[in-house]
């Protein structure tokens, strides 16, 4: 066998890093879907906006990467509020029009990016991308570690929010039973706003983290969004632990697969997995099998 242990470990590490990004995207998608039953196809451009915002703040405001990342998250949270208010609130039951609106947003955002930042990709040069860490035979940039640490921090904070704060608990209640939640005095509109804000902040974080590693371009969010979608299907459409495990799994499987098949087909692996899950076990690992008709 031509696959060495070193190569395998390297891919697992890469996969974990990409998996962390997919987890952030997946969490954003699963929150909106779980609470509002909306599939936000425009999630990819929010991710992209995170990348561009991060670059903009870093270059034009102050060159402190951690601060800029936080600022990016706050900015995208505001964007999320606007999106919910202006667009998705009205389209809750109309699935075809959700798709149209999402696609309209994608067109607008990607072309706005071209107009504002030019058609060629940007390179965001932060210190963490330049310094390397060596572990045995393998070397990674510090940014790899930053991504994983940041994602873990975000997950921990999110879980704390959902389980230990009033608002978070209200959010979980709304996702399980919106009518009951309303009866006990929870305002669903407020919950939807918060959900969108948190979801977009997470996507923005993903873009801000991935940006320095690869290039920042208008299409940078497309594949992450699709893979995040695969992750939540794998994990189970309404499940947060599912999104976390799904995202990691996708990242690692994708990376390890490049040891065995040509990189051209790497993307296809993820989508074939998606099709397979849907055909065999659509409710995913942790989703609830809906007891329906025969």
């Amino acid at each position: 066998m031509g696959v060495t242990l070193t190569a395998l470990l390297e891919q697992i590490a890469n996969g974990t890093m990409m998996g962390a990004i997919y987890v952030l995207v997946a969490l954003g998608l699963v929150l909106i879907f779980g609470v509002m039953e909306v599939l936000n196809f425009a999630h990819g451009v929010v991710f992209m906006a995170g990348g561009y915002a991060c670059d903009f703040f870093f270059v034009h405001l102050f060159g402190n990467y951690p601060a800029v990342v936080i600022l990016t998250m706050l900015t995208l949270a505001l964007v999320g509020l606007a999106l919910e208010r202006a667009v998705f609130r009205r389209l809750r039951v109309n699935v075809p029009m959700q798709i149209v609106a999402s696609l309209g947003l994608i067109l607008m955002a990607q072309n706005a990016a071209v107009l504002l930042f030019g058609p060629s990709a940007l390179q965001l040069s932060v210190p963490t991308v330049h310094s390397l860490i060596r572990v045995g035979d393998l070397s990674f940039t510090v940014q790899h570690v930053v991504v994983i640490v940041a994602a873990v921090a975000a997950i921990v904070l999110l879980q704390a929010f959902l389980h230990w704060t009033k608002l978070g608990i209200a959010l979980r209640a709304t996702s399980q039973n919106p009518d009951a939640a309303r009866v006990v005095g929870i305002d669903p509109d407020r919950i939807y706003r918060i959900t969108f804000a948190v979801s977009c902040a997470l996507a923005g974080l993903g873009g801000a983290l991935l940006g320095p590693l690869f290039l920042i371009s208008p299409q940078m969010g497309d594949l992450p969004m699709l893979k995040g979608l695969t992750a939540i299907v794998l994990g189970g459409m309404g499940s947060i632990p599912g999104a976390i495990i799904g995202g990691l799994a996708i990242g690692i499987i994708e990376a390890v697969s490049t040891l065995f098949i040509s990189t051209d087909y790497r993307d296809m692996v993820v989508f074939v997995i998606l099709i397979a899950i849907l055909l065999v076990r659509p409710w995913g690992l942790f989703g609830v099998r809906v007891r329906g008709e025969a």
Partner: protein
Amino acid sequence: MRARATRLTAGVLFAAIVYLLAWAFDHSPYVLFALTLTLCYAIPAMALNLLLGYTGLVSLGHMGFAGIGAYVTALLMKKGGLAFAPSLLAGTLAAGLAGVLVGVPCLRLRGHFFIIVTLAVGIVLFLLFNNLDWLTGGAAGLPGIPRPRSIDLGVAVLDPRRPVGFYLAAATIFLLVFAIQYGLVHSDFGRSLAAIRQDETLAASRGVDVFAHKLAIFALSAAIAGLGGGLLAVFLRAVAPQSFGFLEDINLVLIVIVGGAGSLFGPTLGALLFIALPEALRIADSVRMLLFGLALLALALLAPRGLWGLALTAAQRLRGAQSAVSHAERS
């Protein structure tokens, strides 16, 4: 009876207009190009409309089937030396077969799951078109597809190498598909599909084999999309995988929904808007695309039944609303 006569007249009139456009723009090859391209895209749009608008199945990967039709037609003509008609037929059948193979496992899925799996199938098809270099030419695609031969019609010669000639050939195929669409919608089969869209459980309890109907329309829809793809390939004389990727899948869905899903003319209207208009505006540069996106957003929020629905509502308002509850406002 009178209704049927009116419909027949309307149909003939529509066909006449489509054909007469060829003579109206005989000396504007660029306009003919835009119109022919529109007709090529209107065909897969009508196919998707049967699925989405009439049966309620949202397929986000439908251009993949158009791609199958395109590649099979192109390969048979270029490498196999076959004539246009049999190649196009083969492409259509290949796409239909693919529709059956995809439909059997996937049509069991409901709602969001079906949408996602069709999205994934579309992407996988694109990746196959893009990477199977030995068969599809990979990212470069298949250039140099031969033009169809001239047809002697007795009174005249139809030469597809001339813009007018190809337009007339495309128009004929377009009208044929339009007639099929019409026939399906107004048949008992179409009524069962409409029932499935409105309430699957009710349809089943009334005796409709929901799965069989869905499979039948899915396969037919895939075949028609393949027909459009084959026509497109021969028109552009080349096939490239980008024509059948994620963005194109999205484009097709937009054409159908924005044009007016569930209406006969909606897909054609949508194709005019999304294909002919950008051509007419010369280039789809970023400002225009941004405004386009804005327009889509506005449409989604203000016109839930698409442009055709808007047109119907406007027409009804002009005539003066008589009944208290208007059909078009029930959305």
